[in-house]
């Protein structure tokens, strides 16, 4: 789903297609049972980047100048158009991602992926275990970030400099952070596997799920809408060319 959406976002070029996509995003966000403002809040930090892109692109793209005079002669109509499209694309992508992450926990996402990869089990790929591994990896990103931050501060307070010297020296000064971070991660992985075993984990055999993934009516509608949207956009873009 998400991937298809992303591809579409990049394919779309005309304003009409964008309008359609925006409409689609709105509807999905509404149906996902979350206020749209919530999804928007997630993208606020990115607005700055968006505006920056807008500014740079306006100058960088060659074409007909807006005007002959002053600073305006550097800004081209094509530049503005292209950058507006760029920004809309960026916002659409992020809203999509935000809807995905706020409606689906990483574990559920990985379950979904595992279900999609089920045919690979014929080739003896341990699909469920891989999914579990990825989900646990995601779960531990914040823990590792926090730990990294702590080690970093500890090294700085002992006088380590991370901001001075040439790139090589700076890279080298990261070693005292990375080594304990990795050592910690390995110890944690060891503890974690013990804890999982203690809680009767024995791989996917005999394991049930509290939340089984079901193909609900909403999913059917969503997939159909997605296919329709893809078809319409496809026609619009290629007929034009």
């Amino acid at each position, binding site marked *: 789903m998400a991937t298809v959406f992303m591809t579409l976002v990049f394919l779309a070029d005309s304003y009409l297609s964008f309008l359609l996509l925006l409409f689609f995003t709105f509807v999905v966000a509404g149906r996902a049972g979350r206020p749209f403002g919530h999804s928007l809040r997630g993208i606020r930090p990115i607005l700055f980047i968006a505006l920056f892109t807008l500014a740079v692109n306006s100058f960088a793209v060659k074409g007909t100048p807006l005007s002959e005079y002053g600073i305006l002669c550097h800004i081209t109509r094509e530049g503005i158009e292209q950058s507006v499209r760029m920004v809309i694309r960026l916002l659409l992508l992020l809203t999509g991602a935000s809807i995905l992450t706020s409606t689906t926990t990483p574990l559920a996402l990985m379950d979904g992926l595992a279900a999609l990869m089920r045919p690979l089990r014929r080739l003896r790929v341990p699909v469920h275990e891989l999914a579990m591994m990825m989900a646990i990896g995601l779960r531990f990103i914040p823990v590792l970030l926090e730990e990294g931050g702590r080690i970093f501060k500890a090294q700085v307070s002992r006088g380590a400099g991370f901001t001075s010297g040439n790139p090589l020296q700076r890279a080298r000064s990261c070693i005292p952070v990375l080594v304990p971070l990795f050592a910690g991660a390995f110890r944690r992985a060891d503890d974690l596997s013990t804890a999982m075993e203690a809680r009767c984990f024995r791989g996917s055999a005999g*394991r049930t799920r509290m939340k*089984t993934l079901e193909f609900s009516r909403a999913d059917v509608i969503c997939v159909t809408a997605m296919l329709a949207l893809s078809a319409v956009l496809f026609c619009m873009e290629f007929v034009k060319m």
Partner: protein
Amino acid sequence: MVATKKHIVETQGVEFSYGACGGPVPGAKALDGISLRIEKGEFVALVGGNGSGKTTFARLLNALLLPTSGTVYIDGIDTKDKERLWEVRRVAGMVFQNPDSQIIGTTVEEDVAFGPENLGLEPEETRRRVREALRRVGMERHADSPPHLLSGGRKQLVSIAGIIAMEPGCLILDEATALLDPTAREEIMELLRRLNREEGITVLHITHDMEEAALADRVIVMHAGRVALDGKPSEVFSRASLLREMGLDIPQVAELSERLRGEGFDLPSGLLDTDAAVAALERMLAGSRHAVHTT
């Protein structure tokens, strides 16, 4: 001798060594002949210095390790019985020291469901148990929170809920309060007391905190892989000099009354509770007013 069902934990002459390449002294016994029984419904504190073998003992009870010699029975099941391994692990639920390395789910609810899911329960039953376990530890409002945003104390409550959801007979906590602040510790202790009293769950609480140990029904002291003392808290903590020799503290109230007794004051031995100690001191002072100026 056949283990009876009355004892949730029974060990007979258990020895364990980490093998030729493990530990500071390779081949040394981490556990050296441990025979003890814990009855259903007991609240036991296990104390002992660093390296005395507490963690090793806990892991033997959960079949994470198997004894080098001797036998461990959990609810009458030999932990060496491969076919009933999962039953042993369900009955003897383990909570570890660091919540960050035992919480697996990306939400609280998912994590609590991990154990029941491994047991192969129906989704309906899992959901019921998760709800119930979260209610019992008072975390139902946090069901959808990501665990890494919770405080250390709350993370540990989630860990406990994850074990309760498997309906264990015995809760084994390996220094589960060691990384927590005093308020969170108290909260966990209160929860353990409640689970023990109201639901009859046996608790084996490994701790460094002697004030916590004093709240148990029974205290086991380990030293160098053996059981050094085993009895009621008042009995165990009256052996102040022996405990100090093993590098252990004793609770403040016990320390004070032992010292006063050592100075020749007339106090009952085995005082642990602050209120009881105050009453005893008042009685003593009323009985011998002349002693006041010497203190």
